[in-house]
């Protein structure tokens, strides 16, 4: 029996109007979730197909789901937000350092106002800790005034210059060479994973179809409708196509004759420190940028850790190393971070990771309507601020599609624009501290000991609307596997819980989709 008030625990289980399918081989997920033919999607052409379920594609799907439209969101990965959107600094930027007058500046300005309300409605953890840009040389100190002016030009009015003493008062561990800085109250921390997930869950509830693990290999252009052709040869009919494929946008655009642009991955490596390092800083500490890069910042994470990074390394398109870390890169991150914070090198590291920005020679936020063919939208170069702008960019794109593509927008009166309390991630609302164990003892059985995540939270995540079925998808929702032991203690027991709850054989479980089985493939499990 569920005790009164228990409804707020468990998970959000809306009656989704959209359909959700994954490209899994037989047995690797429940049959009802498996994508086997385009017929499962109904055969009618979609009003809009969005290729790429990063935070940008998910944000757009969320926005379009507010209208009476048939929309499909496709990604080649086995979860939403698993590309660049999963490996970034996880900051909601104020836009103080943008180039004034650009679309990026405008979108950041709008997003800054949107985020507190968005986070509260969609249940995306957000912490407005504020930032300090720290000058550690005389030369950098001279740049502070210009930075302040630039912020004002971007309509970020609340910045102000701090003296070295004022910084030390706020940040006792600031580097002893600090000369002064710029206080930027509008910088916040967010849960970067939950942004994509929340957008996609609401979109699904409102009727957007979602297809994951499906790569779009080509586009057949037509008069009234186009077809997206998947790598397995399925044809998906679409009246309009939005290319939100991030680093895949160039290849996709080649398929429909999109105009010229050049992109490449700009790798950013990070170091993640244990929770013992969190008290070292109070704000997001930002370096004074150089002509080439914003530099290495040191920031708390919303999860209670400390982060240093990123590097900025330009690599060729399709370089498989675009998301690899390097021993040298990590060393440079530590050096960069140590210029801002004393004692950083003493702190225990728990993980390293790298993300790849979509750097575009034609600038950031390149948007082209009717690119190559009527009804096709190319969006690329969403390089360094896409998490923040996902909300305002979606609005901007929908306006553009209405004007340029003749997309008719009639609001769907039944559409939701919020997730309920039960959708907060467990690590944030701590169900076991709030009585959830009265109804379900598994909310008190820790499985991930480092982050203290319970079996109940794992089962809740498995039952959540996007039916996450990979270890990485679970990790981003629950925090299990993300602590100091990096899965040493819980990987196998976690797999046992997933297998037990879903019926998927343990030998078929994967880290992030087919090909990433946790054990060498092709084995039948022998019961213990």
């Amino acid at each position, binding site marked *: 029996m569920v005790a009164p008030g228990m409804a707020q625990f468990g998970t959000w289980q809306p009656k989704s109007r959209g359909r959700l399918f994954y490209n899994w081989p037989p047995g690797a997920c429940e049959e009802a979730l498996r994508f086997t033919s385009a017929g499962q999607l109904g055969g009618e052409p979609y009003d809009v197909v969005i290729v790429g379920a990063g935070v940008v594609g998910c944000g757009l799907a969320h926005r379009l789901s507010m209208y009476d439209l048939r929309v499909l969101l496709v990604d080649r990965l086995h979860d939403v937000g698993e590309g660049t959107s999963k490996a970034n600094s996880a900051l909601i930027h104020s836009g103080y350092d943008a180039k004034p007058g650009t679309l990026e500046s405008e979108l950041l300005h709008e997003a800054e106002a949107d985020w507190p309300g968005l986070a509260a409605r969609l249940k995306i953890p957000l912490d407005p800790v504020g930032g300090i840009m720290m000058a550690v040389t005389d030369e950098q100190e001279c740049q502070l005034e210009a930075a302040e002016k630039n912020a004002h030009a971007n309509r970020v009015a609340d910045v102000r210059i701090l003296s070295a003493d004022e910084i030390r008062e706020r940040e006792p561990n600031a580097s002893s060479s600090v000369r002064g800085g710029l206080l930027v109250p509008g910088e916040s921390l967010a849960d970067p994973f939950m942004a994509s997930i929340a957008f996609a869950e609401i979109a699904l509830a409102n009727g957007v179809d979602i297809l994951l693990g499906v790569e779009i290999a080509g586009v057949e252009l037509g008069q009234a409708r186009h077809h997206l052709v998947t790598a397995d040869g399925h044809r998906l009919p679409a009246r309009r196509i939005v290319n939100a494929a991030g680093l895949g946008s160039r290849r996709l655009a080649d398929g429909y004759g999109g105009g010229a642009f050049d992109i490449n991955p700009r790798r950013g490596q990070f170091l993640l420190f244990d929770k013992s390092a969190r008290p070292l800083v109070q704000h997001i500490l930002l370096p004074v940028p150089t002509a080439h890069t914003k530099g290495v910042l040191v920031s708390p994470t919303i999860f209670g850790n400390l982060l240093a990074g990123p590097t900025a390394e330009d690599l060729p398109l399709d370089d498989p190393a675009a998301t*690899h870390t390097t*021993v040298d890169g990590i060393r440079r991150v530590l050096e960069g971070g140590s210029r801002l914070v004393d004692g950083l090198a003493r702190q225990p590291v728990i993980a390293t990771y790298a993300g790849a920005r979509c750097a575009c020679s034609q600038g950031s936020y390149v948007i082209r309507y009717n690119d190559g063919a009527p009804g096709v939208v190319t969006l690329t170069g969403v390089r360094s601020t896409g998490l923040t702008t996902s909300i305002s960019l979606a609005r901007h794109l929908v306006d553009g599609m209405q004007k340029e593509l003749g997309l008719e927008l009639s609001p769907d009166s039944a559409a939701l624009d919020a997730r309920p309390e039960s959708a907060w991630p467990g690590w944030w609302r701590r169900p076991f501290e709030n009585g959830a164990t009265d109804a379900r003892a598994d909310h008190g059985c*820790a499985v991930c000991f480092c982050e203290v995540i319970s079996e109940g939270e794992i089962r809740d995540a498995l039952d959540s609307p996007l039916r996450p079925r990979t270890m990485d998808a679970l990790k981003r929702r629950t925090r299990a596997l993300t602590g100091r032991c990096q899965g040493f203690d819980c*990987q*196998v027991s976690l797999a046992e819980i997933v297998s037990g709850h879903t019926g998927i054989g343990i030998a078929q479980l994967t880290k992030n989709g*087919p090909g*990433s089985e946790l054990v*060498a493939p092709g084995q039948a*499990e*022998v019961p213990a």
Partner: protein
Amino acid sequence: MSDAQHFKVVIIGGGPAGIGAAVGLAKRGVGPVVLIERRAELGGTPMGYRKKPGGVPTFVEWTRGRVVFGEELAGRMAKRLAKTDTAIRLGTQVTKIDPAEKRLTLLGPDGVRELTADAAVLAAGAREQTPAEKGWLAGARTARVGFTRHVTGWLDRHGLLPARKPVVVGSDLIAYSAAAKLRAAGSDEPVMIDRRQSPSAGFFERLFFWRWTRPDWSGGVTAAGMKGDRAATGVQSSDGKEWPGDGVMVCGELVPNSELALLGGLAVELPSRQLQLARGQAMSEPGWFAAGNVLGGFHGAQWCYFNGRRLAKRIATFLE
């Protein structure tokens, strides 16, 4: 919370060291004692090493002069514990400590609880160092990069071979035990690489495993990266050497589970996470003691058991 239960001694961790401490305290008539274990069964790390025909025994039982399977050894320890009056809380994790007040926060099936004690023993064991902690191992983040714990977990619990062509990173006793287990279960002869020039396991230790494994050794690797897109395909050094495989096991080089002490404000060395100990395995706050593998370094399970038992004397003295 005012309903915190009070005990004379609380023991954190139900592995060999925690069990040893509980048995030792019972011998001295100290009580009431509570032992808290976050897993569903007692026995700690050795318990994951199931007795299997054709398996590799890796736990030295000095008192009987033989090498046995972990669960045999831990099972005998647990039996000795069962004869004492120690209160045992399984499936319960200590999530926070307040060293000065000797107050512990617990999470278990009945939710969050607190308890207090006059003395506390940290017997939380150790884990294997992660690639990021090593500093010399970077590269891709793929599936099938695991630890020795996973080798035993997959093999002993599920009969699954984590890798057919394993690359073992590390060269201590634990790394050799992992290589032996993999080989005995039918993998190819593992490749073994390490930063050290020569293996850190001693000659006789390697000799013991000779029956099962003679890993293909490469030492002196100073910077390397994991390779692979979705799953590991091996390791590559920054000077271009490659060790192909279908899984990478990152083994040994134990790191103490000292996080409760660290986050609770007891003295811990960083970044090594070693507890700063005074004589008698005392931690920086009076009444707090440590035993077993949490002390740092590698200690065999039976050593840890007796270490816990001996510590009981110090605790009894402290309580007087």
